[in-house]
């Protein structure tokens, strides 16, 4: 997991499987960028191969925290498979999830 900063806007590049075992690592990374003052956070999911409810819970928890500060988390580059997990729980619009297909079209 790496973070690129564009002015005050961090892009967190997440890799591999995001599940019960790895979600705490994402939570730590997001806590760090928030402590550095970020309110708008982009999660780059191009290299995420799996997402479960624990990963989603972390994203939602931080998203709600940021919303209280007029911020948000957005998710870009999700594979069709990973985007499906957001869709099943009705969270795709909440996070403005864009997929790899969106990127190819633009």
């Amino acid at each position: 997991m790496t973070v690129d900063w564009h002015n005050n806007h961090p892009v967190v590049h997440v890799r591999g499987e995001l599940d019960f075992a790895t979600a705490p690592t994402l939570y730590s990374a997001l806590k760090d960028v928030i402590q550095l003052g970020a309110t708008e956070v982009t999660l780059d999911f191009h290299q995420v191969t799996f997402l479960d409810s624990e990963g989603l819970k972390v994203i939602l928890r931080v998203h709600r925290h940021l919303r209280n500060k007029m911020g948000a988390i957005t998710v870009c580059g999700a594979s069709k498979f990973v985007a499906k997990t957001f869709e099943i729980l009705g969270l795709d619009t909440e996070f403005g999830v864009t997929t790899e297909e969106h990127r190819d079209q633009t």
Partner: protein
Amino acid sequence: MAAHAFKRGKYWLIRLSLPPDSSAPAQLRRHIREAAVYTGFAEDALGSMLIGATEACSNAVRHGSYSETDSIEASIQAKSNEMIIRLLYKTTPFVLTNPGIPNLSEYIHVGHGHYLMRESLDEIHYYFRKGSVLARLVKRTRHKN
């Protein structure tokens, strides 16, 4: 992780002993993918099975009652149009609820793994036996061979 596999034609059966810790879901997914490749199980159905099985396995880790020597006994039975996963683990009986559409305000406090399972799988059964539960998960593809 101990594993015993049986392959015949396009039929796959593997029995696994998974550690009751956070590494178990990833280990289970690896074997599910292998079974899908071997049997030609459809990609979209595979994705759904990965989601459902992960949630069930995570629940087994979280809610199981394990001693140092206990494990989660799993099996993956697959053919091209159907995959069945069984997870046997020690736990106390619980009541299954039928989760509704997730409420965002509750999501932080209550994971909706069970809802993901319901939406992803064709069948979910839990059978309770003397201090253990057997979870049986089924996913089918639309085509028939």
